[in-house]
């Protein structure tokens, strides 16, 4: 990368320098809201209500987090968020690898049509209205007392992308593997369990990340389902309820801390796996 620099003229060098500064400026703009909220969560409420241009707290306050955790029920919300995100992840992983394997390896009547229906419903979007029948259904089945129904609906709504990802991945694996295993006496399920699944690790990592993020960030769906049940709310809903309660200006410190609790785990995961996130996003878009 540095090798080329020697041949650049002074003019080009200045231009490149300016471009670099612009890129840095954009990067700062992009991360600014997150920096602001995370450092703001250590400010006192009075400092937040006065405002000002400083990003770092004048006086570092750590009680915002303990207040949020204990009084504002964020301990509960965090547990719910983790449960929801892990649940969506596990269901998506099992469901999409199995279905992807069958779609890739099994011949059956109407396979293409069925696959087409999966694709079609990915594009038909009627918005929040589809949550109404699902909500009424879960009330009827007495499943609205836990987050299980939220997990299943989230995983079910997002399954198409993951299905395409894993089907594409299985397609790329040579059929000889299956045939060899079959000769060794493996059944259809054993081939999946012993041969295919271990090879699916890379795409499973991607699906795991994307579905975990999906579950963690879900908002409208748990909002609707936990309207009357505060103890089931995940962080996204809990922190926004705090904003809607009262005039919204009262507890900026707790809201800042709550918003930080909601984004920091995702940020940490992103810092470690940013590459997988990006490759997963593009793969999903291309396949979808």
């Amino acid at each position, binding site marked *: 990368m540095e090798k080329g620099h020697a041949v650049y003229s002074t003019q080009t060098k200045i231009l490149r320098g300016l*471009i*670099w500064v612009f*890129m*840095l400026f*954009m*990067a700062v703009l*992009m*991360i600014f*809201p*997150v920096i602001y909220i995370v450092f*703001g969560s250590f400010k006192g409420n009075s400092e*937040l*209500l006065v*405002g*000002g241009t400083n990003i770092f707290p004048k006086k570092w306050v750590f009680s915002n987090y303990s207040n949020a955790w204990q009084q504002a029920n964020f301990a509960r919300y965090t547990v719910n968020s983790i449960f929801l995100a892990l649940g969506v992840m596990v*269901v998506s992983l099992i469901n999409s690898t*199995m*279905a992807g*394997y*069958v779609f890739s390896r099994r011949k*059956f009547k109407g396979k293409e049509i069925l696959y087409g229906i999966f694709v079609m*419903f990915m594009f*038909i*979007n*009627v*918005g*929040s*209205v*589809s*949550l*109404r*029948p*699902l909500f009424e*259904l879960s009330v009827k089945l007495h499943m609205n007392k836990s987050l299980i129904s939220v997990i*299943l609906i989230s995983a*079910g709504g997002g*399954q198409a992308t993951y*299905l395409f990802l894993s089907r594409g991945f299985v397609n790329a694996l040579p059929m000889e593997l299956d045939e060899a295993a079959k000769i060794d006496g493996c*059944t*259809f399920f054993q081939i999946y369990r012993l041969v295919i699944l271990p090879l699916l690790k890379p795409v499973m990592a991607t699906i795991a990340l994307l579905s975990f*993020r999906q579950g963690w*960030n879900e*908002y409208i769906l748990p909002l609707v389902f936990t309207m009357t049940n505060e103890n089931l709310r995940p962080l*996204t809903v809990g*922190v*926004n309820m705090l*904003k*809607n309660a009262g005039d919204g200006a009262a507890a*900026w410190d707790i809201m800042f801390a709550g*918003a930080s609790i*909601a*984004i920091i785990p*995702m*940020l940490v*995961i*992103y810092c470690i796996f*940013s590459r997988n*996130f*990006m490759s997963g996003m*593009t793969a999903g878009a291309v396949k979808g």
Partner: protein
Amino acid sequence: MQKTNKGKMKISRDGLVAGLMLTPALIFLIVCSIYPFIWIFRYICYDYNGFTATFTGTRNITRMLGDKTFWNSVGHTFEYAAYKLIFIIPLSLLMAVLLNMRMKGSNLFRGMYFMPTIISTSISGMIFAFIFATKNGIANSILMDMGVIDSPIKWLMSRDWVMVTVTIMAIWGGLGNYMLYFTTGMNGLSEDVYESAKIDGANGVQTFFRITLPMLSPVLKVVLMLAITSAFKDYEAIMVLSKGGPGNRSMVMFLYIYNLIFGATDSTSQAQIGYGALLSIMAALIVGTVTIIYNIVAKKLDDVV
């Protein structure tokens, strides 16, 4: 399964297993996608508040035709989508081109541009509500410190500014996605063309307009399509940021529908599910029509170029 032949039995058992393995996905498809879709049509001629449904004939349809709030929200949706696309597509393309220069720190920059996409839109709506608060928001403080403005801007409380704020948030939240699509598309372009362009003495701007852009046009078409459809569906962040206000100025159609079906967050009005269902179908038709028109236009352009 009651086949006499042993070999056949093995096959059919495998078939049964395959069917079982596909069952979860099928159940999800039926319950989460097909069932709600059919359900919508059931109530379009009813007045349904979640408990009792009364048949009202065509009243929902006549109400829709005269519902100014709805048609305004459709207008706002188009307005929002236009603002978002006008800024986000060129900007994300520009950032992708600049990243493609592979200067020092490019990977880190890319990671930073993409970062907002992993944050829940509900939380980002909230963060922007803090930043753009009139009295103590940091945006006003910075602008006033720099002397750009004399008095605080009512970002979220005035009809003139709320769409600006909503657009800024939309650009922030979506830029990384589209940038990444473009970056991936550019990685697929052959290096040779750039080499020969360089030998022919083309500068950066010429290279972009004569080579990168034409070669990227298939990617651009797909990205535009994704951007258009997703812009029409956005409402989660707006719901948190401005709740569609002030005075419904930032009310987009899917937010209006949400409020009808589940009741607005800050009012006690009853849910109007039947009417909301009808509007949902209308909204889906609008999005579908826009997509089809876009595809036709894109194809026509293809024939011309």
